[in-house]
């Protein structure tokens, strides 16, 4: 039960991450639901995890990648309407490749260390750092561009 309670306590964090990621149109809560179903199936593994948060986010990552490959989660119908953050954030994040989105959001929203991000996404730590800098630069330029366009109007 203990692992289950710890997982339940992390659900709001998984939802926030999924919401911020889901500029692709994938229903955020469906992503979380699929993640939690896998966590429930592999609950025995949860007890062996040194970092439960990294483990959960890595499950979410795998589900997200599987979805992005074109396979929708079962019953993924809820639109991301009314999502916080507004259209500007969603448009900007949508310009990034999926891996850069994930790295940027894990660092920014979850305040993960580069090592934790590397473990979560199963990539070398050097990749985390190089992609993080590309992601930030791209977002900066996209938002800068938007601000300029608004001034012109």
């Amino acid at each position, binding site marked *: 039960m203990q692992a289950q309670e710890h997982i339940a306590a992390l659900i709001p964090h998984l939802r926030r991450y999924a919401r911020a990621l889901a500029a692709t149109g994938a229903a955020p809560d469906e992503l979380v639901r699929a993640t939690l179903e896998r966590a429930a199936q592999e609950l025995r593994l949860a007890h062996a995890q040194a970092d439960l948060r990294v483990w959960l986010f890595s499950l979410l990552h795998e589900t997200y990648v599987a979805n992005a490959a074109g396979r929708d989660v079962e019953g993924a119908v809820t*639109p991301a309407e009314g999502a916080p953050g507004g259209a500007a954030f969603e448009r900007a994040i949508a310009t990034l490749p999926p891996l850069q989105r994930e790295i940027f959001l894990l660092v920014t929203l979850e305040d993960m260390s580069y090592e934790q991000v590397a473990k979560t996404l199963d990539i070398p730590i050097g990749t985390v750092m190089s992609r993080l800098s590309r992601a930030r630069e791209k977002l900066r330029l996209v938002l800068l561009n938007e601000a300029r366009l608004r001034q012109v109007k």
Partner: protein
Amino acid sequence: MNPARLAEADLHAYLDGRLDAARRCALESWLAAHPDDAARVAAYRLLGERWRAAYAPVLEEPIPAALLHALEGKPPGRRSMLPAAVAVAAGALIALAASVYLTPAPAPEIVHRAAIAHAVYAAEVQHPVEARAQGEVLHWLSERLHMKVQAPDLRAAGFAFLGGRLLPGDAAAAALLMYERPNGQRVTLYWGPEFRQARETGLVYAPGERGMRVYYWLDDECGYAVASAELSQQELLAVATIAHQRLEK
């Protein structure tokens, strides 16, 4: 750090608070001498702040029941197809395993009642509610339900209070409060004192019959259910969250 060149990775590690003191000092003196890079760091910092602020409200949202069920390893909707005896046994198991995060499983009677009341009265154009002033109708309902019936302010979600009416319950009277948006969409808030229970539930989602959506919660005084046939689950969640907060504060 080589003072002739900026290590891009250091700039980000600095931003994320992951540089040791010596390299932080070196980087800060680099930024002092290179305003372009300093401006870039400021812009990146702002990005982070904006993203965190934009998505912070998600952490405060109640957790949808479907997610908790998923964690229990129970697909939503599957339970209703089980024979009643098995469902009861499963319910007992869940209750046994329930922690503070887990909510009671079977869609309770209050969902059914609230859905019917909504279907019957929200469709009514002429007389959806009693023709009385707000204060008067709430006072009257409070007397009949033997508890203080309030109309939580839902204007933040665009809904204005329309009125209320008294309903029959199984063992005691119930009340229905109705709200309306300028575009004619309606939500109802059902008050059923007979559904009270000692252990508070928090907000629980229950899809009703024929596209009706219901969020309900129970406390030691009353059972409450917010119902709509027109709103999406997310919109209804926003309304139910406000009502829940106002009434449970």
